[in-house]
């Protein structure tokens, strides 16, 4: 087996098939990055998986999962003003959480340098929106590099780190989902380790670092000056590519993954426009773009999501009075979704039809396949919780969801979740819905990692302002959805054992009077507790806990002594009430056309949480396979 961790630390140059998220770790090592921080969120958590493969004592940098993206940004900032090159990474919407700190970074003299890696998600593959974070980069005067594939991820991180260290400014490396996860053979350079300089280099004379009153203006002028300088540097940046097909009529300006989609559709259509592919996409290389505009009759701006580059280029053409026809976004659909080769072909067809690859017609014959929504895993404690909570609530009660695996409770047959916003928002939203409301109880769900991330302020607010809501804390001991990262109540951080901060102790410390706590597999007890909790006037919390069974089963299977188990159904006793398959709805149960129910041996983990759901007691105790 290849040792990928050893490879990442190789002194010699090498090439290997890796995903973008792994390539960036080698770049961090080569760039001599010293402090790396994050909060887990797709599409970036595999960066941490690659780091985790390297033994803590061998890592040439410090890494932590912080409690949220804002704290992670602050830790990286602190390290940078102390002289260390730092990096923070998180998902698209993580930048909203980090924003209060992030927008200030451009004002600061970051003497060590700092790279902010954003995992944007065009296509909303695993996010609650597909926000274009280039807007926030503009807001904070922060340059952005955007790679198209893993090889570029590696090169652009190095370029971002160099620029950041040269001008002492933050620089963004903007990745998108299928750049993070794309796999290709990447060539890496040699690496010579250098001992870490342990001198705390912080000096107020490098500042000011206090953006207050009149000090704000010189700091803002410095940020704008830097931005201006970066734009001029971008004109000469060798990473920008011009594909000159000697086509003086049609030119295309693009960047990132849409560039590759464009090449695919052109390879099929045989179209040969000139292409200017940018590496640094903010601030734009004004002269380079001016030259491109003036040398073409028509230019298409091919950019995913919002029309940021298009607006800037149109402004540039207007100011410099360049006679060129600029094609940009035409309709709402050009603002929506990922720019795959199919999407790009569709857009090209509307501008220069001869350049677009023909879409394939649908198959002549089709079969209707039932949709497959995501599901909670077999044995998931959340399933038992939702099944039990549902028995305790009225149809008219309001159920506020939050982010995590438990978000999936919104789906049938549970329908436990009617509104969703973002991390930790459920208690705040619930509080608002409880006002002028005497008839519909408000129940909010919240996960344990989210509790620490952004959940606590909403809880304190509910106490402080005496809101009448019930919080159900879905505690599974881990950050499950993003790949089982430890959190403050796990008893481990990324690097070592640590004192647990139990969710219950925090609630008690805050003065929550009504706390119920039960393992979710005790479904009747949980139902009773929720009934009791919602009857309380004021704020009550039910801690509905059960270890993440996906994580637990993976750990169990690794043990020599592991014995696989599964339940079975006594067909003579089964009265076809179908509670197991249709109400409890564990994916393990199979519904036959004649109404008989079976157990899928591929899926059952033998946890037995289903036994109590059967009114006929037909589900048999789990037995060894």
């Amino acid at each position, binding site marked *: 087996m290849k040792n990928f961790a050893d490879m990442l630390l190789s002194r010699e140059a090498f090439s290997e098939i890796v995903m973008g998220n792994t390539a960036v770790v080698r770049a961090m090592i080569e760039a001599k990055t010293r402090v790396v921080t994050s909060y887990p969120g797709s599409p970036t958590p595999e960066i941490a998986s690659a780091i985790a493969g390297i033994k803590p004592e061998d890592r040439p940098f410090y890494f932590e999962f912080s409690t949220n993206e804002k704290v992670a940004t602050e830790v990286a900032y602190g390290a940078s003003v102390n002289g260390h090159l730092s990096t923070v990474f998180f998902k698209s919407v993580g930048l909203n959480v980090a924003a209060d700190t992030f927008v200030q970074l451009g004002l600061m003299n970051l003497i060590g340098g700092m790279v902010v890696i954003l995992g944007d998600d065009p296509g909303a*593959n695993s996010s609650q929106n597909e926000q274009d974070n280039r807007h926030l980069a503009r807001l904070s005067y922060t340059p952005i590099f955007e790679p198209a594939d893993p090889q570029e991820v590696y090169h652009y991180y190095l370029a971002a780190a160099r620029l950041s260290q040269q001008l002492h400014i933050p620089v963004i490396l903007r990745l998108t989902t299928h750049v993070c996860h794309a796999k*290709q053979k990447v060539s890496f350079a040699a690496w010579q380790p250098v001992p870490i300089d342990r001198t705390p280099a912080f000096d107020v004379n490098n500042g000011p670092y206090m953006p207050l009153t009149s000090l704000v203006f010189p700091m803002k002028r410095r940020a704008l000056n830097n931005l201006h300088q970066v734009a001029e540097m971008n004109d000469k940046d060798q990473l920008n590519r011009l594909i000159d097909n000697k086509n003086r009529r049609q030119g295309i300006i693009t960047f990132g993954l849409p560039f590759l989609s464009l090449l695919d559709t052109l390879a099929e259509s045989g179209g040969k426009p000139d292409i200017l592919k940018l590496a640094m996409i903010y601030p734009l290389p004004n002269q380079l773009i001016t030259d491109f505009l003036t040398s073409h009759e028509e230019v298409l701006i091919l950019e995913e999501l919002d029309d940021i580059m298009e607006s800037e280029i149109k402004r540039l053409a207007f100011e410099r009075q360049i006679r060129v026809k600029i094609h940009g976004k035409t309709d709402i659909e050009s603002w929506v979704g990922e720019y795959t080769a199919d999407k790009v072909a569709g857009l090209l067809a509307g501008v220069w039809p001869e350049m677009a690859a023909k879409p394939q017609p*649908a198959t002549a014959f089709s079969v209707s396949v039932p949709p497959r*929504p995501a599901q909670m895993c077999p044995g998931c404690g959340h399933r038992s919780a939702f099944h039990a909570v549902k028995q305790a609530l009225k149809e008219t009660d309001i159920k506020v969801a939050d982010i995590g695996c438990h978000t999936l409770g919104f789906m*049938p047959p549970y329908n436990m979740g009617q509104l969703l916003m973002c991390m930790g928002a459920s208690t705040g939203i619930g509080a608002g819905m409880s006002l002028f409301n005497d008839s519909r109880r408000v129940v909010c769900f919240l996960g344990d990692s989210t509790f620490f991330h952004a959940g606590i302020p909403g809880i304190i607010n509910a106490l402080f302002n005496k809101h009448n809501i019930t919080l159900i804390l879905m505690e599974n001991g881990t950050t499950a*959805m993003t790949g089982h990262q430890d959190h403050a109540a796990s008893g481990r951080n990324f690097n070592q054992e640590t004192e647990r901060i139990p969710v219950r102790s925090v609630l008690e410390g805050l003065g929550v009077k009504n706390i119920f706590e039960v393992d979710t597999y005790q479904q009747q007890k949980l139902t009773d507790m929720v009934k009791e909790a919602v009857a309380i006037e004021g704020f009550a919390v039910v801690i509905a806990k059960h270890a993440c069974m996906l994580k637990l089963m993976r750990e169990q299977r690794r043990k020599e002594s592991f014995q696989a188990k599964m339940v079975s159904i006594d067909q003579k006793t089964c009265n076809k009430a179908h509670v197991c398959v249709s109400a409890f709805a564990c*994916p393990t149960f199979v*519904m036959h056309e004649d109404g008989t129910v079976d157990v899928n041996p*591929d899926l059952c983990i033998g946890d037995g949480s289903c036994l109590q759901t059967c009114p006929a007691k037909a589900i048999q105790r789990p037995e060894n396979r």
Partner: protein
Amino acid sequence: MKPFNIYLCGVGGQGIGLISEIILRAADRAGLKAIGVDTHGLAQRGGIVSSHIRIGESVHSPLVSKRKADLVISLERHEAVRAASEYLTEKGSLVYYNTSWQPLPVRLKKAQEISVQQVADFCEKCEYKLFEVYQKDLPDPRMQNIALLAAICRNNLVAGLATSHYEQAMGDLMSGRMLDANLQLFNRLVSN
């Protein structure tokens, strides 16, 4: 060389990541340029997971376009039809492992399960080559992906990839008992 596009799919938890990475690395071992991408995140919890592999000198984006896959590999019966309808090109090949993980609407009696016959009829009418794989004596259901891989190798569904390339790729990604068990199964099924 015309690009060779492979679209793989299954249900979260079936082990699509391993089979996909083995094929990608086997192509590399065979000296071919290959790129790919997997889905991660939310869908892994019992939803549809997919993986794209593109082989050839002139491939750019790692994503396979709709109805341009030369080969669709599915670890599950429903997903086999869904993926073939959406991704398989004319005269393409579908290879799938014949197990059914019923989607929620089937378990709620709101939709019909896709049958083996429906898959066969669909492929016949669309003129797709069909390879149905099932192995009844698997030591562990999580080895269905290796049974499928063996069928892909045995039927030479990815041109230019020899048995040794698949074996080397498996050796890159696994070790110890896991490698031994998977190699043993793979070799037994390839030589059958």
